[in-house]
């Protein structure tokens, strides 16, 4: 059979048309990403400019943020002078690379020229059908959104209108063909397809972002209804075509029925009324050129909007960089030359930094940082038959597949455990299903209200007691067995494969000799209640799930004698007396626990017990430190407070997550040991002396740095543009079929992080800055890695990430022109540091001086 003309081209154009849109992972694995990721080749300034025109998104911190920072000394005069020196204007328009934002609004605006409400009705209809589809409420859902929608919408009153009926009956069977037909019906030439499709996607970036995830990032056979990009576009185009169809006959005809799109007030014409209804309706007013005087910094005055903001942002970033580099230079302490009592490997997550600092202060302990999947990209088949879990960053597809097995089944046999778990696990979904029905909620209330009501009261009044009670019941009814992995079975990864991954992990983190008697591999997870964004607090390097399984996997592999034999052949000699122990850091409670203490051999029991005690004390110290920043926290009893906070189902801010993240340090710990990095730095261990070829650095810059940049950018844009790239107030969230949240009762899915993740009340808690990556390595090696990896080149060259290199005692900054420039003591010298609060003459700093006008 010959394929339909242009359908394949339509698919390709739809792919390109979605570039300006973010990607939205489902809530179960809420990965933090750069919402402008697919525009990264435009550079930071160009991408935010396009996003501003297309979505109305702000790309820089607000003028108020800069003004307050200047007033408070967070940005100094010296920082601004330095920023001017370092800046090269990279602001871009919204037209390069084929995204002609002006053209993008043209047809959709014109065809819906009746006003915003008409486009809004299309959005509302599409959102309604998307939610129903993802909720499994449409027949034919396995055949894709377009077919399922077509089947269901055909039964509505709207579809019985003669022209609509003819339109629907004449639609081709596949989404791409239907989209081509509708574009033809609308009279849109192929060279305008992309603009038209971008316009449609930009109307509801949340749904578009979900469809983009499904089409580009989801596993090919991912479970659940597949809302694909082309299906989504096809449905939208049919609605647009229906408007055009009816417009030709019914000026002023009113609709408003079920499944309908009304033309009321539209005038029934494609002629533009001049009222923007499409994607660029949100465009900010034209920015004014700064004209007011600012004597100290004349160059700023000549810059208009984005250029001025770029300088202020750089000044904001330079101030942080200066302080950080100065602290690293002056405060870092040389690690002890004594053999460590134990070594610890933590995730690079910024929340690990505090714990590492407290552990190192407790004795002769050496710590390392590595991506929290610990180098084993594993697909796990859970012991209880649950859904498979992929334990790796989403940049990777799991290449190892293992079965999780109960390691200790006494006293209950496995079959009993499985039955208990199946029964207990079914309670929650059964209650939830009953709540969603039409009649069953009443039955549920009658049947179980006498139990659930008092439990809800208990949960509200004494969250800690309720959590303890629930844990006790859970342990009694469905005890959790000690689990391990089948690493030697017929379907297990080969010994060679296990050794290869172990070798890569150890070499990349720089732990290839000098092994301590115990090496603790510590993953992390977060305990929270009633939190749709719970996975955003878990381990991003593990695919937004808890890190316990990854830690167990690494420890189990590294404890295998056969793997150690193979590692010895590769010149990594792990002593027989070295034991790898899995542990987990709960970042919400700061409890750190050895995961399987009963499996520790007697030879190491006392040491592991001592380590457990030490880690608990370190966690308590961290809780005290962390509680100083938590809103409404009781500092006097920090540990109890954070524990209660974690199980309180009314708590909107269980922890700050990765807020205020700002830097990534790729270096031996000696560069930063002893410095309080304030839980703002991702720490990746790296030994430059054992990486002549740069291959290990390449691994870090193409993997962990990209993930750190994503997290950094997600927080950045959720902070600077919360209305577009933020998920809004948690208190008003409604979960939509696990795909995302609505703010209220319908409409578009919200993107990014909730407001409570970056704001403390009305005040911005997160400091929006681009990631500062510090690398200890020769600059030529770094350049070599950049040159041969497009993604690193785009991030560094496009000013998404700032690079600083530590080499032979000097700090070198990667300038915009690609050269390395030395920084004296990390500071902005030789410029004078005016420092401190600004004087009265600058208090009146005007908006226009900062570089733009308020709408």
């Amino acid at each position, binding site marked *: *059979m*010959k*394929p*339909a*003309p*242009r*359908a*394949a*081209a*339509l*698919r*390709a*154009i739809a*792919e*390109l048309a979605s*570039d300006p849109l973010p990607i939205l992972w489902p809530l179960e694995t809420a990965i933090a990403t750069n919402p402008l990721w697919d525009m990264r080749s435009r550079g930071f300034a160009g991408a935010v400019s396009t996003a501003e025109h297309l979505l109305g998104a702000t790309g820089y911190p607000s003028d108020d943020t800069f003004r307050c920072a200047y007033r408070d000394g967070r940005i100094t005069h010296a920082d601004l002078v330095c920023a001017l020196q370092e800046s090269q204007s990279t602001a871009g328009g919204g037209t390069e*690379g*084929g995204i002609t934002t002006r053209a993008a609004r043209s047809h959709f605006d014109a065809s819906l020229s009746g006003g915003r409400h008409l486009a809004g009705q299309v959005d509302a209809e599409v959102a309604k059908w998307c939610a129903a589809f993802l909720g499994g409420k449409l027949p034919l859902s396995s055949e894709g959104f377009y077919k399922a929608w077509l089947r269901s919408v055909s039964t509505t009153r709207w579809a019985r209108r003669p022209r609509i009926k003819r339109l629907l009956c004449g639609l081709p069977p*596949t989404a*791409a063909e239907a989209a081509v037909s509708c574009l033809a019906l609308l009279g849109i030439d192929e060279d305008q397809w992309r603009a038209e499709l971008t316009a449609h996607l930009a109307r509801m970036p949340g749904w578009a972002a979900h469809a983009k995830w499904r*089409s*580009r*990032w989801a596993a090919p056979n991912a479970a659940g209804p597949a809302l694909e990009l*082309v299906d989504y576009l096809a449905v939208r185009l049919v609605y647009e075509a229906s408007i055009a169809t009816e417009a030709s006959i019914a000026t002023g005809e009113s609709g408003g029925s079920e499944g309908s799109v009304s033309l009321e007030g539209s005038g029934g014409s494609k002629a533009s009324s001049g009222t923007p209804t499409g994607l660029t309706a949100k465009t900010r007013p034209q920015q004014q050129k700064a004209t007011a005087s600012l004597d100290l910094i004349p160059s700023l005055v000549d810059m208009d909007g984005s250029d001025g903001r770029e300088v202020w942002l750089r000044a904001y970033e330079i101030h942080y960089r200066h302080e950080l580099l100065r602290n690293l230079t002056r405060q870092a302490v040389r690690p002890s030359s004594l053999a460590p009592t134990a070594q610890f490997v933590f995730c690079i997550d910024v929340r690990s930094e505090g714990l590492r600092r407290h552990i190192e202060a407790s004795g002769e302990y050496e710590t390392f940082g590595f*991506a929290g999947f610990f180098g084993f990209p594993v697909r796990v088949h859970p012991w209880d038959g649950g859904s498979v879990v992929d334990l790796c*960053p989403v*940049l*990777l*597809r799991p290449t190892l597949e293992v079965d999780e097995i109960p390691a200790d089944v006494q006293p209950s046999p496995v079959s009993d455990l499985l039955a208990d778990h199946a029964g207990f696990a079914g309670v929650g979904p059964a209650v939830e299903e009953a709540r969603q029905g039409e009649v069953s909620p009443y039955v549920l209330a009658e049947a179980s209200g006498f139990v659930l009501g008092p439990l809800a009261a208990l949960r509200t009044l004494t969250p800690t007691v309720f959590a303890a009670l629930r844990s006790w019941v859970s342990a009694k009814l469905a005890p959790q067995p000690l689990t391990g992995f089948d690493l030697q079975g017929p379907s297990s990864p080969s010994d060679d494969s296990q050794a290869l991954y172990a070798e*890569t992990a150890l070499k*990349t983190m720089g732990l290839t000799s000098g092994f301590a008697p115990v090496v603790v591999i510590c993953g992390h997870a977060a305990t929270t209640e009633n939190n749709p964004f719970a996975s955003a607090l878990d381990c991003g390097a593990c695919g937004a799930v808890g890190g316990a399984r990854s830690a167990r996997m690494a420890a189990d592999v590294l404890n295998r004698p056969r793997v150690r034999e193979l590692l010895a052949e590769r010149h990594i000699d792990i002593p027989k007396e070295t034991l790898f122990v899995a542990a987990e850091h709960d970042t919400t409670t700061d409890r750190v626990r050895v995961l399987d203490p009963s499996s520790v051999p007697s030879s190491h029991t006392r040491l592991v017990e001592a380590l457990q005690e030490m880690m608990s004390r370190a966690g308590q110290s961290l809780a005290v430190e962390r509680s100083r920043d938590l809103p409404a926290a009781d500092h006097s009893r920090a540990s109890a407070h954070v524990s209660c906070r974690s199980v309180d189902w009314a708590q909107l801010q269980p922890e700050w997550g990765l807020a205020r993240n700002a830097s990534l340090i790729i270096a031996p710990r000696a560069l930063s040991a002893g410095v309080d990095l304030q839980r703002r730095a991702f720490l990746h261990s790296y030994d430059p002396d054992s990486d002549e070829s740069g291959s290990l650095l*390449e*691994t*870090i810059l*193409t*993997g*962990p740095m*990209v993930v750190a940049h994503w997290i950094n950018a997600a927080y950045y844009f959720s902070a600077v543009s919360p209305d577009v790239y933020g998920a809004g107030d948690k208190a008003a969230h409604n979960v939509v079929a696990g795909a995302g949240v609505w703010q209220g009762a319908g409409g578009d899915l919200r993107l990014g992080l909730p407001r409570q993740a970056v704001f403390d009340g009305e005040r911005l808690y997160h400091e929006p800055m681009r990631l500062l990556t510090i690398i200890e390595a020769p600059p030529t090696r770094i350049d070599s890695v950049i*040159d*041969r*990896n*497009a*993604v690193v080149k785009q991030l560094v060259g496009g000013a998404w990430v700032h690079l600083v290199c530590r080499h032979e005692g000097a700090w070198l900054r990667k300038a915009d022109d690609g050269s390395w420039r030395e920084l004296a003591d990390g500071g902005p010298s030789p410029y004078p540091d005016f420092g401190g609060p600004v004087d009265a003459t600058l208090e009146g700093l005007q908006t226009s001086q900062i570089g733009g006008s308020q709408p």
Partner: protein
Amino acid sequence: MIGERWGLTPMVKVEVVVAGEDTPAVTEVFKEAGAVGFTTVPNVSGFGHHGYHQGLLAFNDRSSLVLLMVVLPEERVESLLEGLRQIFTERRGVLFVSDTFVSRPEYFR
């Protein structure tokens, strides 16, 4: 000639090298053009306009290059190329088209 000599059926083979992250876009075009199967070879390396391209990146499948191969009847090639040409207006990569022969044509229709 070859087909007649060995009883093979002529087909067209299209090979594409793109970044891993563009694989879904390419495979969607394959499917829309009517291809019933394709082959992917991940982590390929080579040298081109943008210099040397690494093969395996240990922690990033999306940025390393992928070779995709598809074989299909001639009447479907035009549609396929329309789609691939669109992708290459903005994405890096290369495209090779060549004659090939298969022994079981029903596998490719």
